[in-house]
């Protein structure tokens, strides 16, 4: 493919086992996406360091786990009801205002 380069790399057994589960044509895209994610993380960490911040990796992992637990649909509905009460808007009107739809 134009612009692509070929490179021989070694993988640990657990990574290799995962790559074995992919179709042959998907391996390069899978690895490329992982490397791009890593590049983005490195840019983030570099920018944070420039601002004087050096987040602890374990605390960042704990924060990631907390943030991954998104509010449930029921909790989001409860929040809309609460804001509807506080604003005097109907829940439907508030949903429209917030772009939430039904």
């Amino acid at each position, binding site marked *: 493919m134009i612009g692509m380069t070929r490179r021989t790399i070694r993988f640990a057994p657990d990574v290799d086992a995962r790559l074995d589960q992919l179709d042959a044509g998907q391996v390069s895209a899978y690895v490329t996406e992982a490397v791009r994610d890593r590049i983005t993380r490195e840019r983030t960490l570099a920018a944070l360091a420039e601002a004087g*911040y050096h987040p602890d990796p374990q605390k960042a992992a704990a*924060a990631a786990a*907390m*943030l991954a637990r998104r509010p449930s649909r029921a909790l989001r509905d409860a*929040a809309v009801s609460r804001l509807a009460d506080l604003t005097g808007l109907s829940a439907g009107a508030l949903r*429209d205002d917030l772009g939430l739809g039904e």
Partner: protein
Amino acid sequence: MTDFALVLDAGAIAAYATGGAEIVGTHLVGADMIGMHAAVPTTCLAEAYAILGPKPEAVQRVRLLLALPCVRTVPMLPGQARAAGLLCHDHADLTRLGIAHTIITAVSSGAAAMTSSPLIGDYLPAEWPIITV
């Protein structure tokens, strides 16, 4: 549509800008680790500048914050403006539009609110994720 994991209010932005809020950086990395973003409502950004004043170091940290790959500024849309305005109109303790914008952005996107204000908890269900700076 951008997938937000957390929303930074003016207090959180200002705390980050003063250099003493490791918790903000930690959660920004956390959001990045799960492939999500942090929202900076524009009203909160303006309020943060109002809090910080023209201190060059703080302004530079705000610039660096906004340049992070996982950070997105979010404007207040017309519908959100009505809800935010009504929240402030009916509740004398909610005097800062930025807090209302934070609440509305958090609910719109199902994101945690990161704040220095104890007020936010009064406007969201008790179980809503709130990270205090």
